[in-house]
């Protein structure tokens, strides 16, 4: 079959099982768009900005576990999508991004809208390709999907010059690929796994430290079996949320900088840390030299570079979580008996004590301003039976969502952890909604973050992606203000956002639905109304602006040295401002 490059592109995507492409056209990709326009198998979602396209592809990927696909033009199209590629690279999200390039004869001539796409994306992709010959196109696309989705997943860029998309050749799609420099290890070393099993049987104070790798690997079932069989408590990273049921009695919640008291105390005092698909990020370890000082560490990770990058490990196991946990469980099934329960009774007593001493708390006055935690909690209670997909932006609201929205299953949590990209939440939610049209998709957003990709509301309305956005509107870059209150003597340098825009009117201007909650009493009815709407909705929740997120481990601090509440000076100051309303701009600025 003789096909043009553009037709080959479409045929390859179909064969890879792609259903949706998030895209924005431009000169050098017009041939591809023209062909996409004339077929029905792939749905094209036209975004309003290429960053939006990238994050939508990420949301799609995180929710489905398959590669997300976006398509952008050369030059500015490419530079606009870079943030999303960097985000996907940090969080190991499988993505295949296609970019247009000027014709091969013009490459290097500073042609109109030329950019060195491969050079620009090299540090933020797992791999990238420039296709110089139409005869290489099919194989390249096959390799791109293979690399993006295997081993430690990540974004891959395929740069297609205009003439390559127009040129014709005989099409044949390779059945398989083999790349001699790329052979991810899935099977863990048997001897190491045996060592791990032995350490687990002997440990008096073990803890599981579970990360995003468990979600990518689809190892939740194996993890559940391991935890229940051995009665080991489970700490989750921000990216690991959902890998283990949040309401399970063995769940300790999130660990790290804004993790729960119990999760951080347990990891600090444990004698065996079993890290599964987690990468010892500094938001989790705090001061590296004093991270779990009493523990042996087992580390299961598919990427050898994750092991011993930040922390020394006693029993490293390179392999896929699912495969390794299966094998580990098999050994443990034969060795675990009632003895371990007896052995670990003091540990569990200690954990219960921690749990009771400092559970997550906040104080919601009946007639007082709305506390952000209250919003997340009510949203959770209201929607948990609908098995929602939840995305967040970046900031305090993200941390409260992580603390109070207890996820029961994996692939329902879309958040930007490694890069911490404000503006991620809304487009990511849209990507997930595009994959699952009938599911409830929530986006818990900040008033600052949401404005970074607000333009995608047009996409949501036109493409009928009825995402429910709940803005915890504190009129601040709240996370920045928190640091300023704690470490910069309360000088609010460029963190106050003021009271514009009116998000309700903004939603309406786009043809979406806008709702507002000013009082705690409004919350229930407003949230219910939002959930019952079949259009995209913004719920503007006016929250108390000075609420701080705790526990908090100051950057570089130790895990057992958490700040649990506002220091006294801050409390005093804030009691004066407790009644700040959006209109009280002057109070806010002088507080």
């Amino acid at each position, binding site marked *: 079959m003789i096909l043009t490059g553009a037709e080959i592109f479409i045929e390859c995507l179909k064969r890879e099982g792609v259903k949706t492409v998030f895209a924005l056209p431009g000169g050098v990709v017009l041939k591809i768009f023209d062909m996409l326009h004339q077929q029905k198998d792939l749905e094209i979602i036209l975004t309003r900005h290429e960053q939006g396209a990238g994050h939508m592809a990420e949301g799609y990927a995180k929710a489905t576990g398959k590669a997300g696909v976006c398509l952008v033009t050369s030059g500015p199209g490419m530079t606009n999508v870079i943030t999303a590629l960097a985000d996907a690279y940090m969080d190991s999200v499988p993505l295949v991004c296609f970019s247009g390039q000027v014709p091969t004869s013009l490459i290097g001539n500073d042609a109109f809208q030329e950019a060195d796409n491969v050079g620009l994306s090299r*540090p933020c992709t797992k791999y990238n390709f420039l296709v110089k010959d139409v005869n290489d196109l099919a194989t390249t696309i096959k390799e791109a999907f293979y690399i993006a989705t295997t081993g430690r997943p990540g974004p891959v860029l395929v740069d297609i010059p205009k003439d390559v998309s127009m040129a014709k050749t005989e099409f044949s799609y390779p059945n398989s690929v083999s*790349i001699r420099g*790329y052979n991810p290890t899935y099977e863990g070393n048997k001897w190491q796994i045996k060592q791990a099993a032995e350490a687990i049987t002997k440990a008096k104070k073990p803890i599981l430290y579970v990360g995003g790798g468990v979600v990518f690997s689809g190892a939740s079932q194996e993890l559940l079996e391991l935890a229940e069989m051995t009665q080991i408590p489970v700490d989750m990273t921000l990216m690991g949320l959902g890998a283990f049921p949040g309401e399970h009695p063995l769940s300790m919640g999130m660990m790290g900088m804004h993790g729960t008291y119990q999760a951080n105390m347990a990891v600090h005092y444990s004698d065996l840390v079993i890290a599964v698909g987690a990468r010892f990020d500094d938001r989790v370890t705090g001061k590296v030299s004093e991270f779990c000082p009493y523990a042996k560490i087992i580390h299961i990770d598919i*990427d*050898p570079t994750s092991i011993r*990058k930040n922390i020394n490990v006693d029993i490293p196991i390179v392999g896929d979580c699912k495969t390794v946990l299966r094998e580990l469980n098999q050994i443990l099934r034969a060795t675990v008996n009632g003895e371990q329960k007896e052995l670990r009774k003091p540990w569990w007593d200690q954990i219960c004590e921690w749990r009771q001493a400092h559970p997550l708390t906040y104080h919601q006055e009946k007639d007082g301003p709305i506390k952000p935690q209250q919003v997340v909690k009510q949203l959770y209670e209201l929607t948990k039976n609908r098995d929602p997909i939840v995305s967040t932006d970046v900031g305090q609201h993200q941390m409260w969502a992580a603390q109070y929205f207890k996820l029961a299953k994996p692939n329902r949590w879309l958040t930007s952890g490694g890069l911490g990209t404000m503006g991620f939440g809304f487009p990511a939610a849209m990507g997930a909604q595009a994959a699952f049209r009938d599911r409830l998709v929530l986006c818990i957003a900040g008033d600052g973050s949401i404005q970074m990709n607000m333009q995608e509301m047009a996409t949501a309305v036109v493409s009928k992606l009825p995402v429910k956005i709940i803005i915890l509107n504190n009129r601040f870059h709240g996370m920045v203000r928190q640091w300023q209150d704690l470490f910069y003597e309360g000088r609010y340098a460029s963190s106050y956002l003021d009271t514009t825009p009116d998000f309700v009117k903004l939603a309406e201007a786009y043809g979406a639905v806008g709702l507002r909650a000013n009082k705690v009493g409004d919350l229930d009815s407003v949230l219910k109304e939002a959930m019952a709407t079949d259009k995209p909705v913004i719920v503007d929740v006016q929250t108390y602006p000075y609420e701080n997120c705790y526990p908090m481990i100051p950057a570089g601090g130790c895990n057992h040295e958490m700040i649990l509440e506002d220091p006294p000076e801050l409390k005093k100051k804030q009691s004066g401002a407790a009644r700040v309303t959006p209109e009280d701009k002057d109070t806010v600025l002088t507080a």
Partner: protein
Amino acid sequence: MEHIISVTVENKFGVLSRVAGLFSGRGFNIESLSVAPTLDPSMSQMTIVTSGDERIIEQIVKQLNKLIDVIKVVDLNETESVSRETAIIKVHTKDEDRAEALRIVDIFRANVIDSTPSTYTIEVSGDPKKIEAIINLLQPLGIKELVRTGRVAVAREPIRPATVQAKKVVRE
């Protein structure tokens, strides 16, 4: 500590920038890097001289291995190896210095590969110490130009790639 790392890569455009980008992006040190095709023209051989403590070298080896265009990585410090560097030195030689220059060339078993009335161009190969030594001796005569290849090295015995060794670290 200094390590010589031998890296077999795909002979494709862009591979050098991936390797160089890895070092600069992660703050690893490159003292020298040399690259040329192997007997099999689809592959190139790089010799990278770098330095760092054990943890850093382990990361360098693993990160190199992680690059998709990298086929094999060998940390030559883990085995016996021989290494060589070549320097080409153009020295300014006035009449009375010409004999002295030739004497130095002789002692170091270097070669004069070009000569003009006022210069000798000298080629010398050896380990870095030898090259430093001849440079020191030639300096008083007046070195006009100096280029060095950076080191190239091979293991004395065929050895297993550092991929396997990285996994051995993992196994102990």
